[in-house]
């Protein structure tokens, strides 16, 4: 290592010194140009009044001060936060129950596992439009409700019902994905634990809480972290179900919808949209830290 020896020079000739960088170059170039550079430029733009066609100037904290008085921003922050609160508990618990249901190798179970995964494979646009039709005022869900004598529900006309329906769609589409993650975790739970608990006379619910949950706890934390970050950044479900302008009076707008609406087009306010994006970054990181910290506290 210290001095170039004869074998050292031979090695250099064999493996051209530039070749490792040639290998990494395409990946580094794309990542640098289209992920890291836009990331830095978002941070910079947040402090300018840049528009799509106007370069803009440094304006200090003006964008952030404007955010504080922007009702639509608070609406977006509220909806994205509600989305996390509504979606995450369901996505931590339901896929685990589903994994337990499909875990045992009974005849035909591979068919069921695959079928439950189908919504994951479909595009969110397809899924969104399927549910827009199902939840239509005259759609299948309402006509079933009518058949059993209930009155139709305006799932897609009320501000809160729209948000709730979108959450249901997110959960519906995510079930199969997290089910597979839980299946892998459950495979590592020693059977003896269950048997010992069964011998001790523990009921199914007790065994679930005292054996299964502790055994897959780290997976539950992982699912909570993944799903909370994804839920806070929700765009497509709400965009499709509430419409591009975010439902009645824009009351269903989420933060990412606001970013998209504010920052694009020829008159897009790039600077202001970047300031909203910075809020998205900060909350995302905070969510991750929160979940991980809650995990550590519980462990000790």
């Amino acid at each position, binding site marked *: 290592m210290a001095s170039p020896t004869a074998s050292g020079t031979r090695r250099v000739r064999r*493996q051209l010194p530039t070749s*490792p*960088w040639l*290998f*990494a170059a*395409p*990946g580094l170039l*794309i*990542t640098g140009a*289209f*992920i*890291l*550079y836009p*990331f830095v430029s*978002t941070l910079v733009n947040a402090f300018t009044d840049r528009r799509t066609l106007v370069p803009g100037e440094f304006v200090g904290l003006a964008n952030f001060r404007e955010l504080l008085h922007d009702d639509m921003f608070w609406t977006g922050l509220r909806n994205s936060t509600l989305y996390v609160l509504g979606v995450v508990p369901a996505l931590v618990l339901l896929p685990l129950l589903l994994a*337990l*249901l499909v*875990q*045992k*190798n*009974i005849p035909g*179970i*591979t068919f*069921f596992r*695959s079928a439950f*995964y*189908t*919504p994951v*494979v479909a*595009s*969110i*646009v*397809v899924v969104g*439009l*399927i549910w*827009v*039709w*199902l939840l*239509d005022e*005259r*759609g299948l869900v309402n*006509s079933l409700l009518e*058949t059993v004598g209930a009155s139709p529900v305006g799932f897609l006309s009320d501000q809160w019902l729209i948000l709730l329906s979108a959450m249901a769609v997110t959960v519906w589409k995510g*079930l199969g*994905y997290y089910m597979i*993650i839980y*299946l892998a975790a459950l*495979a590592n739970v*020693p*059977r003896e634990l*269950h048997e010992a608990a069964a011998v001790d006379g523990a009921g*199914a619910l007790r065994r*679930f809480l005292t054996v*299964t949950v502790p055994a897959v706890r780290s997976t539950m934390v*992982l699912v909570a972290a993944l799903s909370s970050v994804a839920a806070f*950044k929700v*765009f497509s479900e709400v965009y499709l179900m509430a419409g591009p302008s975010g439902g009645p009076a824009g009351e269903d707008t989420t933060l990412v919808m606001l*970013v998209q609406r504010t920052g694009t087009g020829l008159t897009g306010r790039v600077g202001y949209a970047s300031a909203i994006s910075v809020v998205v*970054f900060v909350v*995302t990181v905070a969510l991750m830290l929160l979940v991980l910290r809650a995990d550590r506290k519980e462990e000790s």
Partner: protein
Amino acid sequence: MSVAEKTGTAEKTGPAEKAPAPAREPRITDEHGRRVRVWELALRYLLLLAVLVLTVGPFLWQLSTSLKGPTEDIFSSPPKFLPADPTLHNYERVSETIPVWDYALNSLKVATANVVTNCVGSALAGYALARLRYRGRRAATLVFILAMLVPVEGIIIAQFTTMRELGLNNTLVGVLLPGCVSALNVLLMRNAFLNLPHEIEEAAYVDGANVWQRFWRIALPSVKGTLAVVAIFAFMGAWDDFLWPLIVLSDPSRFTLTIGLNYLHGTFANDERLVAAGTIIAVAPLIVLFACLQRYFFRGVGEGAVKG
């Protein structure tokens, strides 16, 4: 529920693999040869069927709607699940309303290109991070880890202005570029290469094989499984993507299928049969792909979740 009772340990490799056929005995037993009570089994299948209706039912309802003719009542209550007189009329109408086959071709182009660039780019970079020794390797790894942590939804506006500066907005290349070598895939390939024993390359090294030969002939064939996962998720990711193409593409003649569907829905929202036919066109190829290659789909979830 007594579901937690009999935990199988046979599920190491992924749920797609079939377990050994259950014993053909008068009584049904599980994989450990213990008897399963009949009522418990019945309950289990009942629950499975209920979930099946919830997860697959909506797709079938959409298919059924798309096959119903113009005279058939699609709003009837109680609902009619099967079309009385199945017809492909709505599929014809979609292609008369929007250039749906052009959109499908655009989606196919972007998705195929995304597979190629991701496989090549992430295999090369992953190999460099895992197997080659050079100054700056740690820094390069860090670049990809940081990039993986950046939430894409937060940088779309800056990505859009970058594309404008390059003159690539409103082109399929612009749709492709930001995700064409994803950091997650690079790190997946790096892990796969790290897990290979060093000995298999050392022999080739002694024989005088250079770095490209070792990469192409020895290392790459050993990580085919991970490469297949990268390919499938690259295809699915590009085919299903919505937010980014929505921002980059403004000219309806260049839309991909998802953006075209959104456009169809926005313009002809009251024509449910038409929208239904459009969604079936968009989802059918992926369901076929999934049916053929399930194993890799499930494997990808495991690998992606560990990193992501």
